[in-house]
């Protein structure tokens, strides 16, 4: 180390202290409330590896807060059968390459913290109403109860029994609150493969009422409240990776017949009724349809592919609902579904904006941020990130939740907004740490097991996707691991039918 460097160290240290001090003096008590995007979920689970690199943790670090407490969930080796919630990863087994369960959630390592956690975000697909209404969780009653319960600790006899996330946030008397929720109120339509208000989509009136309660409940004099809005969920890899046309699995190029693309087949819906032409039993998906990731398994079996190009001619399923509470999930969204989802998001975001205005909160336009990233990617220092599945860097292996880089982008956006609106000087995140730190389990005994539980699509889904998406000129052989039964109890449906009939529990 040369003399110049030695001389510069005190200056650098002073600058770092000043930078830290500026952040620390700005906000002393930071609390976050919301769904899995606040909890820091990645690749299907919330564990300490992800929590440390979530956008709220990054923000707390930039604020200089050393006492920002999260419900630290240990990451443990995956067991067969599973005893926790599975975390996905890409693994190489001999010459086989595939997506698999590389670890699972363990215990909450700071369960006895005598105060609420600063990060009160939880996964398990909470709706907007849950942040004020979920005051008592019942262990084992549902995934939501299990996952919310370990964060809120509000079960019968637990330290915060009877308190909602909003209540616990107020108990901490924060000077800065970040809220981001409501995504699941519309995201369930995508997981169910059908958009039906009151079934897979929370009615706007109900959403508005819940939003007003949450925002008003989190507002207080002298407190800065910032809330994200709802991104356009159809821009995420879960919905955009599989094109709605037949693709040659060898070349990965669209199949052309007479110079025309060959649409995949669907069963039709009210707006696009289907009259099949034998030998196909489905009809061409109209332009603008979306095919969800779980369709990859069916496509591998020839479902959704016309007989004329070697398929079965059977349609990919579209979600259906039979009153009073029977929802069968599908894997395609028709243009009318998408229109309803997008118009609902617009209404939701108007409700969030209005609630923030009424309560002096600061809106953060997450919708615009994700739209921008989806359109152009994110370029930094000559590195290009995109929303491409598995190889883009912004989204994690579940195709729904961000990877560390994606969370870094969210944190950066949040900090820049605060600096602009509040005149603070919070240092922006350091993307070198985010981009170049391998995101792999820190445990050494991780094993690969298959996941066939009700909270995720199966390993076959991923196997098919990886074969389709990555095998351009590199033969990918997926391991044939027997499906493992899940031991987490699957309990009777809760009163709200949507939550338990939908198959994919990402938030």
């Amino acid at each position, binding site marked *: 180390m040369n003399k110049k460097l030695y001389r510069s160290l005190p200056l*650098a240290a002073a*600058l*770092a202290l000043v*930078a830290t001090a500026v952040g620390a003096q700005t906000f002393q008590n930071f609390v976050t409330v919301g769904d899995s995007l606040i909890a820091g979920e990645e690749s299907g689970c919330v564990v300490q590896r992800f929590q440390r690199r979530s956008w709220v943790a990054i923000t707390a670090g930039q604020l200089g807060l050393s006492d920002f407490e999260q419900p630290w969930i240990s990451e443990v080796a995956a067991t067969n059968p599973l005893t926790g919630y599975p975390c996905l*990863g*890409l*693994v*190489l087994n001999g010459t086989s*390459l595939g997506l698999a369960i590389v670890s699972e959630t363990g215990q909450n390592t700071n369960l006895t913290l005598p105060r609420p956690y600063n990060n009160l975000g939880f996964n398990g697909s909470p709706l907007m109403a849950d942040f004020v209404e979920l005051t008592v969780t019942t262990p084992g009653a549902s995934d939501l109860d299990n996952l919310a319960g370990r964060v809120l600790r509000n079960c019968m006899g637990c330290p915060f029994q009877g308190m909602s996330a909003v209540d616990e946030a107020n108990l901490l008397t924060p000077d800065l609150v970040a809220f981001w929720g409501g995504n699941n109120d519309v995201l369930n339509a995508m997981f169910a493969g059908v958009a039906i208000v009151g079934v897979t989509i929370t009615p706007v009136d109900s959403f508005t009422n819940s939003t007003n309660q949450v925002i008003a409940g989190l507002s207080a004099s002298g407190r800065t409240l910032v809330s994200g809005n709802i991104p356009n969920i159809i821009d995420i890899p879960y919905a955009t990776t599989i094109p709605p046309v037949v693709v040659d699995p060898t070349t990965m190029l669209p199949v052309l017949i007479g110079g025309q693309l060959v649409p995949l087949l669907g069963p039709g819906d009210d707006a696009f009724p289907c009259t099949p032409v034998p030998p196909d039993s489905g009809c061409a998906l109209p332009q603008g349809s979306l095919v969800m990731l779980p369709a990859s398994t069916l496509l591998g079996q020839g479902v959704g592919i016309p007989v004329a190009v070697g398929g079965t001619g059977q349609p990919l399923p579209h979600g259906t609902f039979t009153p009073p509470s029977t929802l069968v999930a599908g894997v395609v969204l028709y243009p009318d579904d998408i229109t309803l989802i997008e118009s609902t998001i617009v209404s939701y975001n108007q409700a969030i904006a209005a609630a923030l205005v009424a309560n002096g909160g600061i809106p953060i336009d997450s919708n615009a941020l994700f739209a921008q990233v989806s359109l152009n990617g994110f*370029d*930094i*220092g*000559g*590195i290009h*990130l995109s929303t491409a599945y*598995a*190889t*883009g*860097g912004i989204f*994690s*292996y579940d195709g729904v939740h961000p*990877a*560390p*880089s994606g969370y*870094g982008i969210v944190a*950066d956006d949040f900090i820049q907004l605060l600096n602009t609106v509040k005149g603070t000087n919070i*240092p*922006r*995140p*350091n*993307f*070198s*740490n985010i*981009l*170049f*730190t*391998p*995101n*792999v389990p820190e445990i050494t005994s991780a094993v690969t097991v298959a996941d066939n539980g009700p909270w995720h699509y199966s390993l076959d889904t991923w196997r098919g996707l990886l074969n389709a998406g*990555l095998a*351009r*000129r*590199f033969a990918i052989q997926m391991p044939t691991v027997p499906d493992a039964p899940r031991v987490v109890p699957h309990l009777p449906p809760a009163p709200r039918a949507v939550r338990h009939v939908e198959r994919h529990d990402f938030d």
Partner: protein
Amino acid sequence: MRQRLRVPLPPLVFAVAVIGLLTSTTAYPSGFQVMTQGAKATGMGLAFAGVADDPSAIFYNPAGIGFQDHFSVMGGGAVLGRDSATFVGANPYPGVGDAGKVQNQVFALPNLYMVVPLTADLKFGLGIDAPYGLGLRWDAPEQWSGRFISQNAVIKTTDINPVFSYKLLPELSIAAGADYRFSGLQLERNTAAIDPFTQSEVDVAHTKLYSNLTSNGGWGYNAGIMWKPVPQIGVGASYRSKITVNYDGTATVIQRPTGDQAFDALVAAQVPFGVHPVTTQIVFPASINTGVGISFGGGFTLALEADWTEWSSFKALNINFPDGTLPPIDRATAWNDSWAYRVGLEKTFGAFAIRVGYYYDNTPQPTQDVGPLLSDNDRNVYTAGFGYNTPQWGIDIGGAYIKFKNRQVLTQSTDNFFGIYSETAWAAVADLRISF
């Protein structure tokens, strides 16, 4: 006078000089303009458009050779180097704690000028010099955080500039000439990609773009005017047109093994490693130099100058791969026109002269464009020199110390690459003149 026309040109000297120029590595930009093309001018702060009394006038103000009545050959060159050029990173990327350093390369730029009086009023001049150049090679290129933008950037130029000057009046000379510019390029950088196994960035490829100096060129022209209302005062202006050079070259793409064989196999299958054709274009800007030289009693000469360069014509650096195997690289630059203000003073003692000078040079590069490819800034430049000149021969030596202002890129960056650039540099120029 006509007898002098029969003096044979020393072809060997020319050949050696030309070869030397064509193989030299250029450097030291104002933007990436290089004005140290004469030793006397350098000693006087490059305020030479209104003086222009040696053969380097072909570069500074070709009308100046209208007042030079002897066949003269002047040759020499500049040596330029960096004293220090460093980078300190800032968030969000590459982040606090990151640092970089430019290699302390030394560059040699030969020059050669010849003035041939054809008649008492008509003069021919030939200049060979290197008015633009860039050399920016970052230290530890495989670890340098800016390696995905640039590890090494080189622009070479060599101009061949024949001019004619004619004295319209005993006190007024004009000049015009053609300017052919050879130019070569070299750009190197790494490419990063997400390792799907670790969801983190890794280096997967190294790309070197190369275009030979002698393979590319473009035509331009220059002109000048010089008015000496009295022998003690010279007022001059010169213009140099913009020159567009279209480059053809090669892009060599090499794989960088990551240590993960499965990922490397995926990369190898999808990235077109090998050699590919590449094309690009640079629009070198037009410039106007205006100056005055005033000789006082006692051997003092004061020179003042203001120079304008039309850097706004440098709008983009777009690199294309005609075989379609690689996506084009389009980088907007949005540079501004720039001004430089110069002052120089000479004191003669018979055949001896000492010179000092100063100039302030505004950078054309907007802050958001500053990055590892080129980090320019406003600069204060202090110069000094001395010379010994007789009617038959002369030798001049000039030097410059260049202190750049620190360039802080902390809020907006085209490359999203943030930090502070610091740089100091120097130049030494020597020329030998022989006149007949």
